[in-house]
């Protein structure tokens, strides 16, 4: 099997595991850890795509909330200190992408003869 095929298989298994977690969480877990969810069913299908994608995080939060080990202070601490580092990293990544893209562009800044990147195997 190719590496790409393996990745696709892993993605498929990831989604299957997510479906199992979604089934358990939306029928059993959600009522245990969130009092606002009790008696509220219409919104639950909206959560399924998110659970399929980030089910390990769902399991982590579910276990944490079941254990009642959460400190309430943590809910009110937005990650403001990260704003500047994130902005600098974003600017650097954007700059890198733009410079790389313009540098390897064959028709910029002037028209040039097309360059063959790889030989075609017979």
């Amino acid at each position: 099997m190719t590496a790409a095929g393996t990745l696709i298989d892993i993605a498929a298994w990831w989604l299957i595991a997510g479906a199992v977690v979604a089934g358990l969480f939306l029928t059993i877990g959600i009522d245990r850890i969130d009092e606002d969810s009790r008696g509220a069913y219409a919104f639950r299908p909206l959560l399924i795509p998110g659970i399929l994608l980030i089910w390990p995080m769902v399991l982590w939060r579910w276990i944490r909330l079941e254990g009642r080990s959460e400190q309430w202070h943590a809910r009110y601490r937005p990650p403001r200190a990260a704003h500047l580092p994130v902005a600098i990293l974003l600017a650097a990544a954007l700059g890198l992408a733009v410079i790389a893209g313009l540098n390897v562009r064959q028709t910029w800044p002037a028209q040039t003869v097309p360059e063959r990147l790889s030989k075609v195997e017979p």
Partner: protein
Amino acid sequence: MSVKYVPVQWNRFKWGYDALLLIGTGLFLWIFIDLAPGVLSHERPINPQIHNARAFGACAFVMLTVILCIGPLSRLDRRFLPLLYNRRHFGVLTAMVALTHFYFILNWYFAFSPVDKFEAVLSANTNYDRVSGFPFEIFGVFALMSLLVLSTTSHDFWMKFLTPPVWKRLHYLIYPTYAAVVAHVMLGTLQDQQDQGLTVIVVVSAILVATLHIAAALKERVTPPQTSGWLRVGPAADIADGRALIALLPGGDRVAVFRHGDKLSAIANACAHQNGPLGEGRILNCFVTCPWHGFQYDVTNGRSPAPFTEKIPTYNLRVDEGVVFVDPDPNAPGTFVPPVISPLAERVS
């Protein structure tokens, strides 16, 4: 806003926001696909699949750029705050547009591959060791996966379940996503463009997003005080009626000291919903209203009015000779603290 996850208070502004969003997106696609294909200067004839893919790809890029600009613009100038209101809907729509772009790409460029078309996306080009000819598709795949994670976790439940700080950290994914989209475009479609118009749009967008984020972050940069015990906030007379002074606490948390007539009360600056800056809001109908999404709290006990159940921490206050001091240790969310009387006329000598 929702009570037991049933939407409430869906006002005309929010309906208008969503309507404008849908009309704007539809208009962009209509112009791109039907109205102006002749002015897009495609060097070679293209089929409808490619044309549609380009239309949805361009639309997703523009939408993502606008979304990324709304946050820092709101921090730099309060007049942009209304744009934050339904930004999550903006994000969900962007993910759907990006998914449609992927659908057209997948069912044209990879549909005739000898292997499965999803596998073909990952295996058609594996030149990861060079910049020229780099498999730009991988940036698009990463961006699409990220947009799907962000859009599927945008419901209010996720904020409560993950906690606003964890949700916010997860949604920082938007930044590498945007960088990946720019790389996807720069190393992809822009490699084949004779027309410089699209290049200028993409480069200007990237510069705009980067500049706005750095400017907004620099504006907010402050160092927490290193003191212990009660913290000086400022003169009581500096707090306008219905408004707040925000103070940074030694641990890095922020407290908002509000004036309501001649009474002062202190609450956490972070809204329970998305940790929006409550201190930048104002008191409306006796409740402080978050400038981001309109969540409301009683400043004396940090509780949302019934039927809402949100709670935020409160702080103890005192006023010495017209100067406000706050106890940096918060009370548990929803704890009542009697307001401190401080007439508006009282001024520091």
